[in-house]
């Protein structure tokens, strides 16, 4: 175990003349963590983007405090960026951080207490606090070092502020570039690419700002060259195809543009807002409009109105906003107005955990609207799918004249990964609405008796005049309260989902089609689940997984698939009771949300393992949980 003072006295490294140790790793996870506002995220973003462009697989996760501006130097205020870099594709954030770079010891403590750091992690930490004039700060530093010394970390103190002060008056504004320089040296990153990225990051600032940041970057690089005695080599892959590097919210925005949508109506809400940030910069160039409404309800209303008038519109929100939009959601279903609604899930209920990931909106997404309001719910599983799902969502919304809800989450929204550059396809674009004269006698809701589908008629269309109502109505949009009409119209709206389900192809099983245990997941957990499955299969366990994208209607073929396994367990980022907890019984146990749905639709005794840690699931945690539930080992 390292002593308290050894690493602090002098960083072992090049200064002693010893050449650095080069560690070759298939993957390595690095995180930069600071107080809020010190730029750790920007440092991590540039590091991640450059790593991806150089040919590493990358998955990033933002570390965001629950408060926008928490007090400085408290563990709860840790803000940062975690980058998992791999020699091959990286699909999730992994288990533990191998190298952390911290701007103070308190934020490092936060990561330590969350078990985010590997036992042998290298910790580069700003050392000015050790000699602070404030005795409390010195004491806090000492206490932190004692606590950190309970693990086998290697702590390397870094005089970040002192070094930055040689170049700038306010190191709080420059430490992140110094840190970036250190990481660039340790991981042997391409400095020219980093400078390009710095130029892009500060493209709206003066040249002097760019130059200062480059100087800070170079200073950090040189400092690490001299003082850090380890280099991490993660082999690069040759990039044979054009890649793009983006987060899920950017992918949603670009997918919406590629799909030919005309309008995004939204109200700012974490973690969905950045969809509109990107759109507001570029949407107009593609003929689109971003409308920031006065509230969530109005945003849904504007999108529905736009869609009703013949345009294709979508709205973006998160859990609390979804709650407010549900009345309008019912309106869109009742009036059969196409609408795409993106819900970037966060922790709940109520305002919950605004910046943290969770998959707790599934049941709300399906059933929140009072009355029977059948609609389509799709959950992309990767950032790449966030792009492509928007094209499908727009098409289905129009083809089925209904609401298509797209469920992403904070993990997809803020995570960054490279993926194959999409080649836009003309047919992705929304076709203009058919405005030819409606045949005389055609009714506004002329439901096909088999499919429930009917022609979309927009205001102003010849022979298409009708009164739109959200009251129960007949084919002619006449208010009709008789039981027969309501039964018929409800059946038509519901039938559309059955029709769509008949078009879906059964999801593929990851692993063998038979075995001891099948893990079922949805949304952003795909990468972690499949990595966990790989690890268990490597140990000889008969575990497979299946990942669902369509949740309403549910994908076909699940029951026969489930029966090929001794046990079926969902893994989800939402809350469920554990058998053995006080008062919890098989009868009253509340299950994971997908588990509820699967039990209802397949009548299979689906178990679940769910957590709400406010962070993505780790493959290692899934492995442990699934091993506990293996039928041969006696599940709980």
């Amino acid at each position: 175990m390292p002593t308290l003072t050894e690493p602090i006295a002098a960083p072992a490294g090049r200064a002693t003349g010893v050449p650095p140790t080069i560690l070759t790793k298939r993957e390595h996870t690095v995180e930069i963590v600071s107080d809020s506002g010190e730029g750790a995220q920007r440092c991590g973003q540039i590091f991640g983007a450059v790593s991806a462009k150089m040919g590493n697989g990358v998955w990033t996760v933002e570390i965001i405090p629950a408060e926008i501006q928490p007090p400085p130097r408290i563990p709860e205020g840790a803000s940062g960026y975690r980058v998992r870099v791999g020699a091959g594709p990286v699909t999730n954030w992994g288990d533990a951080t191998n190298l952390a770079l911290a701007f103070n010891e308190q934020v490092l403590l936060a990561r330590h207490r969350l078990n985010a750091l590997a036992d042998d992690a290298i910790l580069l930490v700003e050392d000015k606090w050790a000699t602070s004039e404030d005795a409390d700060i010195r004491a806090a530093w000492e206490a932190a070092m004692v606590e950190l010394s309970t693990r086998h970390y290697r702590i390397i103190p870094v005089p970040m502020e002192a070094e930055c002060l040689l170049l700038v008056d306010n190191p709080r504004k420059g430490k992140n570039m110094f840190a970036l320089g250190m990481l660039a040296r340790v991981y042997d990153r391409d400095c020219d690419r980093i400078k390009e990225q710095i130029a892009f990051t500060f493209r709206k600032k003066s040249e002097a700002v760019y130059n200062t940041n480059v100087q800070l970057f170079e200073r950090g690089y040189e400092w690490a060259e001299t003082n850090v005695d380890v280099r991490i080599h993660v082999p690069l892959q040759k990039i044979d195809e054009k890649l793009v590097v983006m987060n899920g919210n950017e992918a949603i925005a670009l997918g919406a543009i590629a799909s030919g949508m005309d309008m995004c109506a939204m109200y700012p809400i974490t973690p969905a807002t950045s969809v509109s940030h990107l759109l507001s910069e570029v949407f107009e160039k593609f003929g689109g409009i971003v409308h920031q409404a006065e509230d969530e309800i109005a945003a849904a209303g504007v999108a529905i109105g736009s869609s009703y008038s013949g345009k294709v519109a979508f709205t973006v929100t998160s859990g609390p906003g979804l709650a407010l939009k549900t009345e309008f959601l019912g309106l869109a279903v009742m009036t059969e107005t196409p609408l795409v609604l993106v819900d970037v899930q966060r922790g709940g209920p109520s305002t919950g955990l605004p910046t943290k990931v969770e998959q707790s909106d599934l049941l709300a997404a399906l059933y929140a609207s009072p009355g029977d309001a059948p609609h389509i719910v799709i959950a992309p599983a990767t950032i790449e799918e966030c792009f492509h799902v928007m094209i499908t969502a727009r098409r289905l919304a129009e083809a089925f004249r209904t609401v298509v809800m797209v469920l992403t989450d904070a993990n997809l929204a803020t995570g960054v990964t490279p993926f194959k550059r999409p080649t836009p396809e003309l047919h992705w674009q929304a076709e203009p609405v058919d405005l030819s004269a409606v045949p005389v006698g055609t009714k506004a809701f002329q439901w096909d008796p088999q499919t429930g589908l009917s022609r979309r008629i927009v205001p102003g269309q010849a022979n298409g005049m009708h009164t739109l109502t959200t009251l129960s109505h007949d084919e002619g949009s006449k208010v009709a309260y008789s039981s027969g009409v309501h039964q018929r119209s409800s059946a038509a709206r519901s039938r559309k989902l059955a029709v769509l389900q008949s078009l879906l192809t059964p999801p593929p099983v990851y692993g063998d089609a038979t075995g001891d245990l099948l893990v079922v997941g949805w949304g952003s957990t795909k990468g972690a689940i499949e990595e966990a499955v790989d690890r268990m299969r490597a140990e000889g366990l008969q575990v497979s997984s299946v990942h669902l994208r369509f949740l309403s209607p549910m994908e076909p073929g699940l029951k026969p698939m489930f029966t090929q396994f001794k046990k079926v367990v969902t893994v989800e980022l939402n809350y469920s009771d554990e058998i053995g907890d006080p008062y919890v019984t098989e009868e009253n146990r509340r299950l994971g949300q997908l588990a509820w749905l699967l039990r209802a639709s397949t009548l299979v005794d689906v178990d679940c393992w769910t957590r709400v840690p406010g962070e993505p699931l780790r493959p290692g945690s899934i492995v442990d949980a699934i091993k506990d539930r293996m039928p041969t080992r006696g599940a709980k």
Partner: protein
Amino acid sequence: MPSDPRVQQALTALDRPIAEFRALMEGALRQADAFLEQQMADEPARVKRAAAALGVFGASHIDATRFAALHVGTRTATEPSLAALRRAVDILRQMADRGDNLFLAEVTSGAKIGAVVESALAMIGWAFGAIIVTDLVRGGRYVEADHASMLDPLQFGGWNRSERRAAPPLVVRVAGASVRATDLASFADGHVKLVLVVSGDCAPAPLARLITPGTFVVQTTDGSGLDRVALFDGPAFAALMPAGAATFVHDPALGRESWQRLTVSFIPDAPKKAVGAMSTWQQLEELKQLADLARTPFAVPNAGGNAAPAMGASDAADRIASWLLTQSGLGGTA
């Protein structure tokens, strides 16, 4: 078009709005082609199209054959509308084949600059009509009696607001003697941008007559300022002048007053000979107009209390402060 490196210089400076207009045409062309193809599609082609329309995500989860069988949305267009669409495609293809020449015009000897510009813009208007017809046919709204005339060249006077805003820039090669700025004034609307490449003897400041509060106007002898023409959100005139001409930039974004907006970098001596129909007096009037518009409205006294030369146009706040101090009897003490 005779080669002149300045023409290429102007086209290069305007490449962004030119590319945007080309994208508009090419987008319409591709959509029209796709619609025509779809109208003639057999079953396998319809399935292929359905799969493409579902996107990469949809195609991997949805059976495109069954999706295509559902209907969904393929409308059969009438023969007259398809004929109109084919004509629109021909027009757009012709326009596309013209390349840069679509955005170039030349005022030949004896021609009037206004008429040349009008004719060139009518060609652009033709493209607008073809684009609209494409949209009408695809949406099932094409009515032969109402819309057939859209496939004829459209004079600028008939352009609507959207078309004026979508107008591409036009580079006009013209001899100095043929430059009649007043003939161009009627084109100052929307995003119309005209760049004159002037050769030979010319009045020194012909574009001074085109300065209005919302119009970007630049005269340059070396091409500086042309890039700002491309970026300006409104109508703009520019002239690449022969050496010796006045050079100035009038940028409406720089202020409410003309002296705030206008930066004159060079005014030549008074003209000594007539150019074309422009007498020396008329030319001098243009130079005076330029000087008047650029003149700051007040002078600042120096420390001794004598009138000082007007300050530079760069700091309006200082000038106003100085003026206030002067008016309140505090001039010279600050």
